[in-house]
Structure formats: C-alpha cells, structure tokens
C-alpha cells in the first residue's frame, strides 16, 4: 500500500503538485494526464526519486524520506527510455548492478542473474554490448534489470511512448502478465483499459479517479 498524504511539490517558483492525497492499493493502477499535469512528478515520488516539498509518501508505512533504501527495495521504477536506464556496457553486468546494490552475496547475485537471463530471453545476449541491442531487446533488458531485484510494486513511466507497434504490444502483454503490482503512467489508453483503477491528473491535482470504464470516457471528453 502506498499512501500519499497532502503532498505539495514545488520546483523553484512552479507548483507542480498541490495538496495531493490518495492511497494506492490496487493491482493495476494507471495514471493519465496531459504533459505538465504533474503525473511524472507524482510517479517519481512513489519510490523516493523525488522527496515531497510538503507532506509525505508512505510505502507500507515507511516514509520515502526516512527509509529510502527499504522503499526502493519494494518499489521498482522503469523509465521511458531504456537507453537512459541501462547503466552497464554488457547485458549481464547491467542485470547484476541492482543486486550488488542490495548487497546480496556473490553467489546469489550470480544465480539470480542466470535465472533472469533465461526468464527474459536474454541468455544468448549475456556478453552482448547493450548499445548493440534492438529497441525491443533494450526495453526487455531495462525491465529485467528492475524485476531481477524482486520489487513488490513497479512504477512504469510512459513505457510504450517511444516504441513501435510491435514492441508496444510486447510491453502491454508483459505488464498484463506481471505477478507484481504495477502503477503505469501512460498516454496509451489502449494499454490501460483492463486496469483496476485510473487516476487523471490536471494542473497538479487528481481530477478523476475510478475504474477505467468510467474515468477514460470522461477524461477523453475533458481533453476535448
């Protein structure tokens, strides 16, 4: 459960989120909104990438400000552009990076990397340089290197925006099949239709909140 308690986010002179309070507990939650509505900022608050200017964010009762390590173990974050998320030059090195940060013993890191290489279809590419992967493979590696850390909740920031049709479908299927809970920021309404809950942001506030069949039509209307 993630609780956002009267969070206000200010960058310099700009108020990006104003007094947002909401509890997130559903298995599939979507966040929609126009550019600059505050939805990406909201996503970055959920695992402590940003700390709120006012208010607090609690993940299973732990504050993102005080227990950032424990929070990041529970909440993984997948960025829009896989290129900006792959840290290491080789596929297997990148998979191991997060696990090493968790200070797992070397044997466990190796075992989990092996398992992930097989599970996400990257086994053939283990010593492949990351920059030579195809777009879909890069996206898969970015996902795998977050999932290998076994977070309970995964936040996706516009996971399909930069992808072609085929890779879009692959990611959509992937999110659908995910065991973990997912919070997905997206413009891609098709991706969100079978979600449990949709939050719509506008000018730093949540303006719509509910099941997709009620929220999405009203959201489209609002967007004109």
């Amino acid at each position, binding site marked *: 459960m993630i609780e956002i308690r009267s969070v206000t986010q200010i960058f310099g002179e700009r108020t990006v989120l104003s007094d947002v309070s909401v509890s997130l507990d559903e298995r599939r939650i979507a966040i929609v909104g126009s550019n600059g509505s505050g939805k990406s900022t909201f996503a970055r608050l959920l695992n402590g990438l940003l700390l709120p200017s006012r208010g607090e964010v609690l993940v299973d009762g732990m504050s993102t400000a005080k227990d950032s*390590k424990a929070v990041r173990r529970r909440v993984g974050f997948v960025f829009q552009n896989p290129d900006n998320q792959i840290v290491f030059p080789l596929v297997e090195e990148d998979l191991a990076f997060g696990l090493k940060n968790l200070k797992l013993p070397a044997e466990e890191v190796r075992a989990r990397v092996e398992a992930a290489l097989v599970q996400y279809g990257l086994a053939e590419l283990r010593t492949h340089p990351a920059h030579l992967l195809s777009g879909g493979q890069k996206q898969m590696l970015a996902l795998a290197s977050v999932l290998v850390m076994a977070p309970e909740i995964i936040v996706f920031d516009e996971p399909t925006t930069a992808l072609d049709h085929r890779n879009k479908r692959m990611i959509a299927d992937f999110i659908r099949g995910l065991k973990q809970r997912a919070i997905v920021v997206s413009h891609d309404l098709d991706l969100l239709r079978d979600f449990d809950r949709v939050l719509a942001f506008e000018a730093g506030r949540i303006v719509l909140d509910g099941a997709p069949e009620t929220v999405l039509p009203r959201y489209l209307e609002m967007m004109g």
Partner: protein
Amino acid sequence: MSVGVYVHADSVVHRLSPGIKLAALFGFSTLIVLVRDVVALAVALGLVLMLFPLARLPLSLAWRQWRPILVVMAILAAVQLFYSDWVGAVSVVLRLSALVLLAALVSLTTKASDMIEAISRAVRPLAYLGISPTRIGLVISLALRFIPLIAEQLEEVKEAQRARGLERNVLALTIPLMVRVLKMATEIGDAIEARSFDPDDARRLSDLWRRRSEQPSERNDH
C-alpha cells in the same frame, strides 16, 4: 569506435585476475622504459606477441591495436635515427610496440566490469579520505556506457540538421547534442538511484566496518 575492446575467449589469460594483469602491465611498462638493450627489447616484444595465442586471440587483433601508433612511432624513430643511430630507432619501435600490445592485451582479455572492480579494490584503502570505491566503479562503467550513446545521439542530431542543411555547422551539431546528452545523464543518474544505488556508500572506513557487521541481518529479511 572500439570501446567494447573486450573479446571473449576461454583462456588462461582471460581467467587471470584483473588485478594481477594490471600489476603485471605496470611492472612491465616500468621495466621496459628502463631497458636500453635492443636484444632484450626484441625478446620482450616476442614474449608479448606469444601471449596472444596463449589468450586464444588471433594476431590480427594485435595488428589492429598496433596500427594506430604507427605514425607516432615512425616520427619518434626518425628523430632517433637523426640524433643517434638505427639501434636507437629500432629500440623506440620495439619498446613502444611491446608496451602498447601488452596494454591492449590486458584490455582485450578483461571485461570492463572486472577491471573496474580491481581498481575499486585497489583504492579501497582511500575510503577514509572520502574516495569511495563503489562510486569510482560506477562512474567508470557509466563513461563506457555513455560513449556509444553519444555517438548515436550525434547521428540523430546530424540527421535532423541535414534536413536544414546544417550538418557541417559545428555549433548546430554541438549545442543540441550537448543539451540532449546532459538530459540523458540526468535521467541515468535518477535511474541509478531508482535501482538502490547509494552514492554515500563506503564513504568512511568506519562505515565499511559497520556495514559489514550489519550484512547478515540485511540478508535475512530478504
């Protein structure tokens, strides 16, 4: 651009610990600068060349590493020929070739991540000065990761400027490229933190010790 210089093969040289390889390279380069005897230098170069088959790497790879220094070496050899004699000129060529090929062999047989881990271990005693091995390791691999990304971004910017007929304008290429890669670096910085990287890790020796004693309990709750 040959950044991923590592070439995979199953050999003794590949398996050798990177720390030993780096120490050997350092020792060898110090020695070879001191050696003046041309026969000894030829033997040294011969030994280095023999390491390539031992590492199960084709000699063509050695040639590819050697080629870029040809011009510099020729100039230096010519200067030697002018100031001293042909023995001096040959010595310069032998010495530089041996040095460059051994250094290249270390890079060819050692994964960047292993190399970095070796350096991190070597600087560990400096941790109490605020120099953290974890950070050094990260920053080195990030640089290696960024090089092909910058090349890709440059191609994209070139394409965009070609449409406007500006692909030869240095500023029209550099400025957008710069802003793009800075944004990219900012986001990668965030992505690293999202994957539980702790930039303050191992800042002091005392922290290192404390963390070590905490580790078992941290493993259990996982």
